[in-house]
């Protein structure tokens, strides 16, 4: 008859780990009440560890964590605010340029300086050059301004939808 089982042998036996002398262990357990009792105690301990309780989180835990990761009002809109402001300014500038006839102001500017120095001449030609350039590109400017403005409005709509209300139609 083999010696009493060690604690490790008992635990291995209960975990179902294969052992070299598995048959001997079983034979010993069948004949030794002391070891059998110790194994039963380990078994009860295993059961107690498996059914341990006391890990309760507050009932609204999942919801409150979700609220922390996804606040109701999104912090950042898809289009940065400065872009929207820039778009509005650009659109307004384009509108003014097209709606108001500025040529008289330019004429006044030109006529007022009958005797110009070479420097003044250069400055004026640069200014008119820029204005010409602006005139050529103005259609492009208007188009991009309009596109940005549309983006801004769309962003507003999306934001409102996310909050669950469409403010435009409220």
């Amino acid at each position, binding site marked *: 008859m083999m010696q009493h089982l060690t*604690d490790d042998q008992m635990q291995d036996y209960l975990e179902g780990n294969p052992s070299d002398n598995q048959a001997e262990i079983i034979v010993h357990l069948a004949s030794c009440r002391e070891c059998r009792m110790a194994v039963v105690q380990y078994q*009860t*301990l295993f059961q*107690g560890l498996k059914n341990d309780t006391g890990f309760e989180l507050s009932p609204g*835990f999942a919801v409150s964590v*979700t609220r922390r990761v*996804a606040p109701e009002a999104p912090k950042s809109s898809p289009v940065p605010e400065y872009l929207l402001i820039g778009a509005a300014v650009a659109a307004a500038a384009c509108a003014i340029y097209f709606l108001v006839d500025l040529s008289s102001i330019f004429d006044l500017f030109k006529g007022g300086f009958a005797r110009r120095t070479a420097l003044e001449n250069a400055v004026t030609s640069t200014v008119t050059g820029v204005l010409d350039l602006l005139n050529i590109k103005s259609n492009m400017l208007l188009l991009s301004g309009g596109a940005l403005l549309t983006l801004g409005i769309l962003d507003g709509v999306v934001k409102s939808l996310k909050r669950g209300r469409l403010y435009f139609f409220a």
Partner: protein
Amino acid sequence: MAEERELVKRILTGDSRAFTEFVLQYQRLVSHIVFRMVANEADREDLCQDVFLGLYRNLAGFRFQSKMSTWVARVTYFRCLNYLEKKKTPLFEDICGEDQTIADVAGNGELPDEFAVSQDIAGRLREEIDKLPVHYRTVLTLYHLDEMSYQEITKITDLPKGTVKSYLFRARRLLKQRLEAQYGAEGLS
């Protein structure tokens, strides 16, 4: 796995309900580890929240190379270790009487016929678990409560398999000895 992938995809597109589902699915596992490793009751729930916020932030980087539960447990375990280090909690408390044998503790060697887990013993067991070193408590929880294999526990904790096994076996032996010291002689049924 396919369901997990789908859930992660939904979370990453900003579906907050999907994230709630994710939390509900893993809060048991996370709370097991946090409650076992952290003694301070006031900090436990905050820590669980922290873990989920961290998981949320790192979800895009999860490549499904392990089970989701393994990854969740690993993040939780290391978050708790980090917390314990900050609080300067010793990870290996001195264990008195570890090398006592069953007979030493049980006294006259008279063992109870039954060792049923009554409410009383369950409470006592919890108290005794709390007295164990933090690594012992952790492997006990992962193995018994979350039914993780040695291999999974190794992946979660980075402890070698032999160490996991020795912590587990020593922890159980200690618990059995201490419960016997408490209830053995009375022969509880």
